[in-house]
């Protein structure tokens, strides 16, 4: 690197932001109302209030619609519960998520094999419980327990489950690696086994 390159790097090195920068920014963000949400909310409430104004027949019609919707929702919930219970007893093939991830792209730092949102906070309760059965042996005939072919929606759900589980697995292993490496380094320091620093 030439002298002027070095001098320019020195002259234009990053400087820390003024102290309190992020506090002032967050204060500005908190003060700002969300104009789009506020407008939408006002429209919603005024429309709702208008529903209950007017003649009694209108009120009866609104009440009847609400009742029908409630009953339909309840019936739908019952159907969903029953099908979820059925699904939970269907044996599926063993999840194969042990494919080693490809190395990270050095340019972007992203892993090509990672699912879309690997660091996502996962709410495990939203997925139906799945029972994992052993893979049937290669000579299995129709006599053995046959796994029912899952439908497309279930396949997609299983796929999403697998991706999230794989992402969580990678994260946990990474955390374990970092924690145990730190332990090893501390142990080496204790034992006086110093390695040259990078």
């Amino acid at each position, binding site marked *: 690197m030439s002298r*002027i390159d070095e001098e320019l790097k020195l*002259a234009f090195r990053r400087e820390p932001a003024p102290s309190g920068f992020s506090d002032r920014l967050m204060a500005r963000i908190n003060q700002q109302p969300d104009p789009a949400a506020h407008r939408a909310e006002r429209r919603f409430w005024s429309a709702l209030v208008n529903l209950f104004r007017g003649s009694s027949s209108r009120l009866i019609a609104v009440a009847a619609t609400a009742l029908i919707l409630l009953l339909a929702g309840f019936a739908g919930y019952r159907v969903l519960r029953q099908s979820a219970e059925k699904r939970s007893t269907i044996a599926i093939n063993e999840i194969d998520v042990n494919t080693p991830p490809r190395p990270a792209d050095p340019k972007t*730092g992203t892993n090509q094999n990672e699912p879309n949102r690997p*660091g996502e906070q996962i709410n495990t309760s939203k997925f139906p419980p799945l029972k994992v059965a052993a893979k049937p042996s290669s000579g299995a005939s129709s006599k053995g327990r046959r796994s029912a072919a899952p439908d497309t929606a279930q396949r997609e759900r299983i796929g999403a489950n697998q991706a999230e589980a794989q992402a969580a697995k990678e994260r946990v292993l990474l955390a374990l*690696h970092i924690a145990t490496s730190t332990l090893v380094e501390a142990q080496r320091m204790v034992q006086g086994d110093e*390695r040259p620093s990078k």
Partner: protein
Amino acid sequence: MVGWEGTIALEKAANVGLEDALERSARGDQLAFAEIVSRHQAMVFSLACHFLRDRSLAEELAQEVFLNLHQNLSAIKSPAHLTFWLRKVTAHRCIDQTRRLKARPQVSLEDVAEPVSAPDEEDMLMSEMLRRVVETLPEKARMVVIMRYQEDLDPSEIARVLDMPVNTVKSHLRRSLALLREKLSRKLGEAIV
């Protein structure tokens, strides 16, 4: 740390943390957004400060960039995309800001104080001289130089951020460096390579 292993794994861990913060902040988590801000504020502020040469203006601009980010979090796909987005928005806002302000007068190198004997002060003055000369460059050329030396971007990356052809970036760099060398050589009385 002495003998630290798995540097790539650690950078991946940092990326995973940032991806998680992006995800959470898109869902309205203010703490996650604050984390994103703290990780990138130096970059955004420095770009603005080096370009505008005014700390208070730079802070104001940097805050606006992050406010804009807050409203567009759902469009950010990844940590790499976030960095790209921040650089791009900051650069464009800086250039727009300069065009709105009055043109800064050309600074003559003769106005810069003579370097003194202590080497640290000499280095500081050299840096200050360079910054003042760069300040006099046209906006796009100035931003190209700052992107190159602050962010260590190569011409193709600068071209993507500033939305200009690669050859134009290279040409800006070449001419700016030639100008810098010439001005500094005249001042210091020695050839600057």
